[in-house]
């Protein structure tokens, strides 16, 4: 480890940018990244080198370090430590290629470094494009970038409360002209003709912006802080990244023009994700017929065929799809998915979305003609939209040659027509065919179904979605959820104990997250508490009545006992030989005695 060297310029060591080297810092991560990539030896040109914090460690690893900066004091300080230096104003971007080629002077350049530099430039892209030209001329060495992350949770959480605290250095250095998030950094570098080849970002749970530590946005005990950290973590893995440390390679500019970018107006409203194992082909055909008969065509279908061996299932499924009119079949994409559990095909589909919303339909469920249209009627403001399912019982036919399946019941309306966020903590009232989620929500939070759980994956997914988006009820029954008595479905294959165990696991997970409920939930909770109070009172009354009844029963029992004893005595007397002989006379004698 190298510490600050006081060899020449005390003036520079007093600078706010004179950092000492530490492995647990962005500088340490840069050196580790270079080690990891095992670059061939050569020059490493450090643009905007400042105090050249990484010069010694790189020198120790056999690289020839060159420090470049506009600050002559900094350069004096670096050259005093025995390193080659050059003065250059990076704002003159046009000069950059020629200047760098001149510096290299025919020597092999292993890497160029930009550590804490681009955030100080007035414009990023012209600089990076010019640098890319320079790298082309230098034989395409790698570029190492270190850039502060303005989307660290400490910055974001405080900003929610109106705080934006500039400091001399760090995440909110007062001289920063640009601010970068992971997304922006990726976009800017790709647009400038660079491809990321490796990353070793530097993270701190508490950054230099973690002050005041008792602020409700930061305090670890604060529910607000807990909620904001949980949300931030749900978006990407950079909530605690202080510094993006990336290795980039020069790439052809053309390769980054994406053909797959579709403007929102061109996107279909809905992607319907349908999973099948190809074992219930008649059911699949029925479900597809329901989709073909929709009153709105503004949707596409991702038909996920989840089988390990596609030899039989895939041709059969393709054949069923091809039988439909081309206006429908052309909107169905059949995708083979191998491996994993029930959630795997859903997740595969979530990575392929090109629409505004996504809904799900299993191959044994059915929908009404207005399923899509009804979802669309309330799909605004990024809301999750929810309809209602009717339930009916079906069973597998004993002879599938004659009947594909038998319907055993009429429709049951067991699900509430309005989403109740509190009730949903207890159990699912929203089967997978009754909700649709904005794709923007899925992209923003990279939401996926949990492949570790074997059932109730839809409930878990929905509850994670509703934590971030409003929910709008259509109050319309637009799907038929089929409960299988015999045959195959998640409802029949898994026993009640497994359902209850999974339910408890998911409830435990929900309990670990801070919850945010929409306005109006307090009333729900109040009415639930009131009802609980009434039930408690009724229960207490019932217990009191029961105690009273028990007491009466006990008294009656005692009295019955006494009566029994008396009756026994009476019986013994009545049946005694003496009574039978003398009894009547004794009675007459008693009467006479009383008369006297």
């Amino acid at each position, binding site marked *: 480890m190298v510490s600050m060297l006081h060899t020449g310029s005390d003036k520079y060591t007093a600078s706010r940018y004179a950092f000492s080297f530490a492995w647990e810092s962005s500088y340490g991560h840069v050196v580790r990244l270079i080690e990891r990539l095992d670059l061939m030896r050569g020059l490493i040109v450090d643009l905007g080198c400042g105090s050249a914090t990484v010069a010694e460690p790189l020198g120790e690893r056999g690289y020839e370090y060159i420090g470049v900066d506009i600050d002559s004091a900094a350069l004096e300080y670096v050259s005093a430590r025995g390193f080659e230096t050059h003065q250059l104003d990076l704002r003159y971007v046009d000069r950059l290629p020629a200047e760098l080629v001149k510096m290299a002077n025919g020597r092999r350049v292993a890497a160029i470094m930009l550590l804490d530099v681009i955030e100080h430039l007035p414009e990023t892209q012209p600089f990076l494009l010019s640098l890319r030209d320079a790298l082309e001329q230098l034989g395409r060495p790698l570029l190492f970038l270190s850039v502060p992350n303005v989307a660290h949770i400490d910055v974001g959480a405080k900003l929610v409360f109106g705080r934006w605290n500039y400091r001399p250095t760090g995440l909110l250095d007062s001289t920063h002209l640009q601010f970068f998030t992971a997304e922006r950094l990726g976009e800017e570098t790709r647009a400038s003709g660079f491809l990321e080849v490796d990353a070793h970002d530097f993270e701190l749970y508490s950054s230099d912006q973690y002050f005041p530590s008792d602020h409700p946005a930061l305090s670890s005990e604060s529910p607000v802080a807990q909620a904001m950290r949980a949300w931030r973590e749900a978006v990407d893995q950079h909530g605690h990244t202080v510094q993006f440390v990336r290795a980039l390679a020069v790439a052809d500019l053309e390769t980054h023009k994406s053909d797959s970018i579709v403007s929102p107006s061109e996107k279909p409203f809905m992607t319907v994700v349908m999973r099948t194992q190809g074992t219930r082909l008649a059911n699949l055909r029925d479900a597809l*017929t329901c989709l*073909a008969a929709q*009153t709105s065509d503004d949707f596409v279908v991702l038909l996920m065929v989840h089988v390990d061996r596609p030899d039989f299932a895939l041709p059969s499924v393709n054949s*069923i799809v091809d*039988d439909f009119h081309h206006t429908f079949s052309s909107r169905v994409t059949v995708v083979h998915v191998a491996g994993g559990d029930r959630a795997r095909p859903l997740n595969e589909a979530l990575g392929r979305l090109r629409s505004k919303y996504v809904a799900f339909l299993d191959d044994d469920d059915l929908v009404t003609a207005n399923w899509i249209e009804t979802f669309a009627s309330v799909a605004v403001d990024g809301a999750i939209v929810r309809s209602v399912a009717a339930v009916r019982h079906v069973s597998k036919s004993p002879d599938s040659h*004659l009947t594909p399946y038998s319907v055993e019941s009429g429709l049951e309306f067991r699900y509430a027509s309005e989403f109740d966020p509190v009730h949903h903590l207890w159990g699912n009232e929203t089967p997978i065919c009754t909700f649709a989620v904005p794709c923007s929500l899925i992209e923003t939070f990279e939401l996926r179904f949990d492949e570790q759980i074997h059932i109730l994956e839809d409930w878990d997914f929905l509850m994670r979605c509703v934590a971030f988006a409003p929910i709008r009820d259509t109050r319309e*029954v637009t799907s038929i959820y089929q409960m299988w008595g015999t045959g195959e479905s998640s409802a029949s294959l898994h026993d009640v104990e497994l359902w209850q165990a999974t339910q408890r696991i998911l409830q435990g997970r929900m309990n670990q997250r801070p919850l945010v409920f929409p306005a109006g939930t307090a009333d729900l909770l109040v009415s639930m508490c009131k009802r609980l109070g009434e039930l408690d009172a009724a229960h207490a009354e019932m217990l009191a009545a029961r105690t009273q009844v028990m007491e009466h029963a006990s008294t009656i029992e005692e009295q019955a006992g006494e009566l029994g004893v008396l009756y026994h005595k009476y019986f013994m007397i009545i049946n005694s030989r003496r009574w039978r002989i003398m009894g009547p006379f004794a009675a007459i004698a008693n009467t006479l005695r009383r008369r006297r």
Partner: protein
Amino acid sequence: MSSDESFGRLRVQTVLFGQAQEQLWRLLQGLSAAARKVQDAGLVTSVDWALGDSSSEPVFGPGDAKAMFEASDGSLSAVTYEVFGANLGSSGGQNHLARGHPSEFLLVLNPDTYPSPTALVELVDALSSKRASVVEARQIPLEHPRYYDPITGETSWASGFCMLVARSVFDELDGFDSEHFLLHCDDVDFSWRARARGHKVIVAPYATVFHDKRPRVEDSWPTPDAELYHAALGRLMLATRWDRPDVVEETIAFIESGQSAIQREALAEFQSRMESRRCPSIEQDAESVAQFIDGEYAAHRF
């Protein structure tokens, strides 16, 4: 019968009453795919689609039928559209469309349907292989609760939402009784008359046809006034023809004790027809065919 006719021609008939054009264009897509499939299977030689319009304002304009035919991409041999100029009801409309158009198979199809691609194959196959004369498709998403034999498919009656009939039987029965059953129970009466003459009426469970029914939480199925009227009138007519005076009396008592003005109107119409002797004559052997069970015309599974 020529060799061309030995496979049979299929005529699909749909009676309209104020439907949206979009619904019929969507049905055309489903029908085209199903028609192609049944012809590819060699079960019929051709499929044509006849649309008859009972609406006061015609659903289609000139040229629309031609456009629909062209859009069928050769899967339909013809698409015709006829404006009736009067409300003939579903039964009258079907009879009118069938008249003078020979075919071996006749498919009565509601406008608010969408056949699955294999529906026609399954229907025609069931008619041939099970020696039935009337075959009903299975409705999705809401299946009709009527009982059918799980092996033979035999059932009390076939619904006119999608009913394939052997043309010879349709002609033998002189079509639907549109005089007494304008909208409701025409299919029940037709099925029972077929069965009374020894013909089999069956359900083909693999022949699925989407029927645009939309349940509601509050009252399961919203029932329009016209349906209430014709259901009541149809029931009274049906019970009269099939010799069930007890059902007639029970229905009258039900209507008279109820609050529905529209059902009372139906009762008044029935009584007026009775007085003017415009009621159906009683069928022979009615007892062996007709089923009046718990207010329905068949045993129900649920």
